[in-house]
């Protein structure tokens, strides 16, 4: 128990020292930055105060020390603070660069070749057997490519939930033509949420994951549910499947990591990506971010 109380005392001393050093450096910064005129006024007040409470000596010491510090270290400290400000600016620039890079990575990882080749093979087959269906799938593919190919996205906006849902519908329609009765789709997105801002290609990634890792490996296939709701001030966009669930030993993959990175850069701690395994099996991925009704710009 003696050791514990010594430790406690040590902790207290350490904290006191910390606090004192923080105060001292705050004083130091103030001195370095304050204008001489203001410092004269402060000295005058200190002298008056010192005379009143009969502590002239400490007042003189204060004036001497602050004068010395101001003359000797002020310039250096000012430079340091300027440097810090510059590096803060630089770190904002770094953040912006990271966001750019994350966005570039998303754009490049857009269209999976496997998906494209399989869909083209399907269209080729349908042209021979069911030209109407071929035309339908073909139209969906064009719609999908229009919003997901980087070159074509530039002017397209696409930053609303409505736009993202539309794109996902096109993608899922193609997948349904390929997987037939093995894929069922349910959308539960209220119309009024269509105008809410939502980052591009996130919903898409979640749906691709649900198919690739949840339903494609399952012989019987299953259902994908896209659900959106506002909870408090937060917009929830969920993608759930009743597939094989998550393999605990499989890496989360670039898709999810990229979503997480972009959410952090765009919204900081206000947004999150939550992955769950519901009791009934399968997997649920949920993007949660601050809800706004329309884009400001």
């Amino acid at each position, binding site marked *: 128990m003696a050791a514990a109380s010594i430790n406690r005392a040590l902790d207290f001393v350490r904290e006191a020292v910390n606090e004192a050093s923080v105060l001292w450096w705050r004083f130091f910064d103030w001195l370095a930055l304050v204008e001489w005129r203001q410092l004269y006024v402060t000295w005058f007040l200190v002298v008056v105060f010192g005379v009143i409470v009969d502590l002239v000596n400490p007042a003189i010491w204060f004036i001497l020390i602050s004068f010395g510090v101001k003359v000797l270290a002020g310039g250096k400290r000012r430079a340091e603070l300027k440097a810090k400000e510059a590096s803060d600016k630089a770190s904002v620039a770094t953040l912006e660069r990271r966001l750019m890079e994350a966005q570039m990575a998303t754009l490049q990882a857009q269209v999976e070749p496997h998906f494209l*080749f399989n869909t083209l093979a399907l269209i080729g087959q349908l042209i*021979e057997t069911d030209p109407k269906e071929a035309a339908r799938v073909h139209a969906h593919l064009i719609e999908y490519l229009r919003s997901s190919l980087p070159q074509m996205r530039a002017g397209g906006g696409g930053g609303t939930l409505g736009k993202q849902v539309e794109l996902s519908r096109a993608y899922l329609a193609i997948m349904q033509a390929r997987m037939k009765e093995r894929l069922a789709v349910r959308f539960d997105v209220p119309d009024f949420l269509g105008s809410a801002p939502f980052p591009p290609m996130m919903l898409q990634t979640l749906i691709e994951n649900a198919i690739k890792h949840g339903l494609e490996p*399952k012989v019987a296939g299953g259902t994908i549910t896209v659900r959106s709701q506002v909870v408090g001030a937060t917009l929830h966009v969920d993608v759930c499947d009743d597939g094989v669930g998550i393999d605990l*030993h499989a890496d989360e993959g670039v898709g999810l*990591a990229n979503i997480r990175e972009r959410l952090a850069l765009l919204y900081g701690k206000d947004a999150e990506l939550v992955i769950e*395994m519901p009791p009934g099996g399968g997997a649920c991925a949920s993007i949660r971010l601050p809800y706004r009704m329309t884009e400001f710009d």
Partner: protein
Amino acid sequence: MSLTALIADDEAPLRAQLRARLNEAWPELRVVAEAANGAEAVALAAEHQPDIVFLDIRMPGMGGIDAARQLYDRCHIVFATAYDQYALDAFEQGAIDYLLKPVTPARLQTTCERLQKRLAGNAAAPQDIGAQLAELGALLKSGGAAKPNYLRWIQAQVGGSLRMVSTREILFFQAEDKYTSVQTASTQLLIRKTLKELTDELDPDEFWRIHRSTLVRVDAILEVTRDMRGRQMVRLRDHPDLLEVSRNHGYLFQQM
């Protein structure tokens, strides 16, 4: 006696397409069955004893490669794939027949001629492609790189549901009384797994044990400093906590 074939592909339209193309390229070949996945293909092959099996590589449940490993000593295997860079490389080097989807009549013609030659010349015993298949199977599963099976997701009970936390999201684990706490940039969760179990199951290059009660993700470390008592302390990128490094684990940061 006419030759028979089996087609396995999880996408019905593509089965129909291959069947139609085969009918044009090789009218005498009779397609006796169609399968929608690997297990079905193996079962149907046992039942119908086809001479040739066309297998899609990616199918739900049992894939084409695994099915082929059970079938190759009984029949000729032809793989069909839309896009699998690893598989294509392997095919180019090896003696395995393959078709690229969408299947073009010309390419199918070549494959059929090769099969006919093989079947007629009774170079009969299909060559031993078992080893090659095993290699290919491993290659496809690991996505190209062989990496051991480390734990990549942590499960935590939150209310009524099971939260899944990717190891890439985790900053550190800390042993509490009965639980282990999992710290991410945004939340803290409690799990029942002990630190010992986690240390064994996680990738040792991804997570380092720096203290009896702390396991930290290497990528999350910003710097290692010393405090006033001379202890090494780990500072993290996205979290204010300082983590103590015990003496036995100080060697981890010797070079830094």
